């Protein structure tokens, strides 16, 4: 646990916050891309010890939140089939589809199982040769290698009753979309450390150069986040923009080459719909043709799914950083973790759930300030 406690030191955190406060002269908006970072910021109250001039905007990096509604609906349809054992990471079970969630399917008799590794789903497939076993393969570049490994293993070992419902998403195209959006207020990015541990960070340089935006690879503990923010502010105040690695104990420039090779073998890039945001070109991964027989979307006929999103939910505006969760009219009233309208209220990493769970006593100055700035 030493590795955690030493990055949660209160005194060092205050010193870093002090350095940031001394350095900052103008208002800056910094987006933490990853939902894990949002969770840590709100849980630890990092935004509370930052100077008022530094505003954290919560990005679209919660895999649960951005998985498109049609994929959730397909998952619900497949999981409802009596011949299927449906395997998923735990926090996908409560994500609302057009009608209900995977918990509802389970309560209605569907065989829905929580797994901790996609390889467990392959094992379940081997143990149940007379059933179809489907794994919901979602997430960013972080979870993709293990999912790719499961697909490859099932393919190579001819586990024919295994398939994956794939909806992977990629960080760099999302950053590009945010920078291109007309109302963009983001001045700098904290890039997600875990994603970069797989991919490295070479491909962030073109983004940084094109948009003149500082990108700092950042971890998840309080001191990691404060160091990332400190470096962003330092770059912004000196009018420079570069890619910096503030998480070198985990991330190397080239990333995990073995994982990248595997990813390239199993997946190819594709346009992907992001829940609440819309379609982003070349922002996802799907299975290559070699592995197409393991694609649950081809195996089960789910092409006629019609989706129905809540008209009240403004998760898209939250994910793009246009509003804070508690500026949505439905926040905490029609939409709570108990009955979420959008996925951002479900996962612990979702900005809305993080606000609801940890932020109810946070003073409301921050959202008011944003409204003023937008007006």
């Amino acid at each position, binding site marked *: *646990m030493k590795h955690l406690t030493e990055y949660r030191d209160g005194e060092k955190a205050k010193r870093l916050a002090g350095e940031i406060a001394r350095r900052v002269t103008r208002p800056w908006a910094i987006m933490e891309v990853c939902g894990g970072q949002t969770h840590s910021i709100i849980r*630890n109250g990092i935004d509370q010890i930052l100077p008022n001039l530094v505003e954290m905007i919560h990005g679209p990096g919660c895999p649960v939140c951005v998985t498109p509604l049609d994929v959730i609906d397909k998952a619900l349809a497949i999981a409802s089939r009596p011949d299927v054992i449906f395997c998923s990471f735990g926090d996908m079970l409560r994500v609302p589809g057009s009608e209900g969630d995977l918990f509802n399917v389970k309560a209605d008799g569907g065989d829905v199982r929580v797994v901790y590794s996609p390889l467990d789903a392959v094992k379940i497939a081997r143990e149940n040769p007379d059933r179809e076993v489907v794994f919901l393969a979602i997430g960013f570049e972080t979870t993709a290698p293990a999912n790719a490994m499961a697909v490859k293993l099932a393919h190579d070992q001819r586990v024919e009753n295994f398939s994956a419902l794939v909806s992977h998403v990629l960080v760099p195209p999302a950053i590009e979309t945010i920078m291109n959006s007309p109302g963009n207020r983001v001045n700098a990015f904290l890039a997600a450390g875990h994603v970069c541990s797989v991919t490295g960070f070479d491909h962030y340089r073109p983004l940084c150069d094109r948009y003149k935006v500082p990108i700092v690879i950042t971890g998840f503990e309080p001191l990691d986040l404060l160091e990332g923010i400190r470096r962003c502010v330092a770059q912004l105040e000196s009018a420079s923009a570069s890619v910096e690695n503030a998480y070198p104990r985990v991330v190397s420039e080239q990333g995990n080459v073995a994982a990248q090779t595997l990813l390239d073998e199993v997946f190819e890039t594709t346009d992907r719909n992001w829940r609440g945001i819309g379609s982003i070109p070349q922002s996802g991964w799907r299975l290559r043709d070699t592995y197409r027989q393991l694609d649950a979307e081809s195996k089960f006929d789910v092409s006629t799914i019609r989706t129905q999103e809540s008209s009240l939910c403004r998760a898209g505006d939250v994910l793009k950083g246009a509003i804070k969760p508690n500026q949505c009219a439905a926040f905490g009233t029609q939409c709570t973790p108990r009955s979420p309208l959008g996925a951002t209220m479900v996962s612990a990493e979702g900005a809305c759930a993080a606000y609801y769970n940890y932020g109810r006593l946070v003073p409301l100055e921050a959202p008011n300030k944003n409204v003023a700035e937008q007006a």
Partner: protein
Amino acid sequence: MEDDKPEKRRHDSTAHPIEFGGAVCPVPLQDYPKIVLGHGGGGKLSGELVEHVFLPAFQNDHLNRLGDSAVFQATSLQAIGQRLAMSTDSYVVRPLFFPGGSIGDLAINGTVNDLAMSGAIPLYLSAAFIIEEGFPIAELKRIADAMGAAARIAGVTVITGDTKVVEQGHGDGCYINTAGVGVVPDGIDVAPNNARPGDAVILSGTLGDHGMAIMSVREGLEFEAEIQSDSAPLAEMVAAILRVCPDVHVLRDPTRGGLAASLTEIAASSECGIVIEETRVPIHPIVQSACEILGFDPLLVANEGKLVCMVPAEFAVAVLTAIRSDKHGSDAAIIGRVVAEHPGVVVATTAIGASRVVVTAIGEQLPRIC
């Protein structure tokens, strides 16, 4: 029965009629190594199960009389206090045996602790078993023996019981319900709505041990060392607390829902706020690691041998010392205080000096994706 060797017997039971050393009844148990529907039918098989499994495990005259109900004297109770406390709980844990305990320990300790949390001295328990057809009798015996041992340690007597058998596929091995009666000493007034601003909040030990022990066994997760459940009876600890501070305001055992649920319920019913300092909450390093890996909040994880109490600040040190003197309280700590501000809301101050609201989980915590 103390010298029983359950492991050995379990092995033997698959091949031979079961013979329990020291059994009180000379009539041999029919040669069923597993529970059949007839064991719940109220006939000869039921009687044999009681005589060979439950009576030896619980060993007391009330039970031995096998009446439809147990009758006990109230006069001796009245010497202690005029008020009785009663509680019931059902136990459906999977797996039935786990590091640090079994469903048997839980079924005794859970009800003992529920009684103790109202300041009562736990005295008598009932035990009802719902057993799935096909369940090994040797395992039932292990469970019953664990209950008997736990009852003796906690100083309670299981004086009445019931057994039902459900068809295979209609249960999960064995479910147990226990109910308990205790007597509340005169002058003691412990209740969840008694917290007062200024009270110290004291936790009796590390958080999350039971929940993460179950989680790691159930899901086959391996950590650097085995996580042990904290299942333990707390009546002695409560008695020690009441001796140094009869004016304890609130006692609570943070079981399902964890400390977060207990504190938010207390804050709501007492119409006070509660502030805890996150860095003062004791958490075993392995449990902390397991929680980090799964994305769990230790404040929300179940405990089965911990209590949290609210006491007037001037008694805080004395109560802390009393808890630490108990064998289940060595890691106790003062973790926070009751405040008049933000009634109904529990706030945690974080390691970096900020604060957040502590909320309860909607249902079970879900492992995070990454």
